[in-house]
């Protein structure tokens, strides 16, 4: 049960070693940098040190209680990440699959719209636009 913010890459296999003992069901989500049809070479991710960790930990604790998780983990990177690199992951462990799936979606919905991260596109000519928030990410929160 932990949240981490780091610039270093992470390995999902290593994160899952010993994760969710006696869980039955483990779900992971990982987000990767897309090239957007070759338009991007990287993403730069800015965050709010201090608040980020607090927010992610609060989301994890809320999910653990709501979905009766036996374990959860959030890892989110910051800095400049090349196309294809993992940006972040969440993992959830529960007795049955529905709780594990729901908890992972819940964490992602909160993380997308309520964790203090901002993405900027980087193309062949250098830094470009800040990524705009998607209205349907905000809408997704309404279901919880």
């Amino acid at each position, binding site marked *: 049960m932990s949240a981490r913010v780091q610039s270093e890459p992470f390995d999902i296999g290593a994160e899952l070693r010993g994760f969710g003992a006696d869980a039955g069901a483990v779900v992971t989500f990982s*987000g990767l940098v897309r090239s957007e049809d070759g338009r991007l070479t990287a993403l730069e991710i*800015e*965050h*709010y040190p*201090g*608040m980020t960790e*607090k*927010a992610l930990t609060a989301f994890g604790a809320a999910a653990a209680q709501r979905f009766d998780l036996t374990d959860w983990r959030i890892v*989110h990177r910051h800095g400049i990440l090349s196309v294809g690199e993992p*940006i*972040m992951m969440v993992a959830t462990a529960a007795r049955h699959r529905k709780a594990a799936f729901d908890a992972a979606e819940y964490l*992602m919905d909160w*993380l*997308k*719209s*309520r*964790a*203090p*991260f*901002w*993405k*900027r596109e980087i193309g062949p000519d250098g830094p470009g636009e*800040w*990524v*705009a*928030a998607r209205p349907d990410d*905000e809408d997704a929160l309404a279901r919880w």
Partner: protein
Amino acid sequence: MAVEVLYFAWLRERIGVPRETVQTDAATVRDLIAQLAAMDEWHAAALSDLSAVRIAVDQELTDLDAPLGHAREVALFPPMTGG
């Protein structure tokens, strides 16, 4: 009182500094933002559309009409795009 004001993403770029210490008597976040917007043209431009501004007081998300209270740190930033 003195409040540390932090800016992120394009708000940080438009204002030109990542943080500044501000002396204020503002009662609410809205009052503080009005004071900031009056400082110079960069602040004014960055803070012209408050629908695009999100707020954290002492690292908790809140809204424009939240009382400033004894806040030590107020952060202003665009809608978040994590994940």
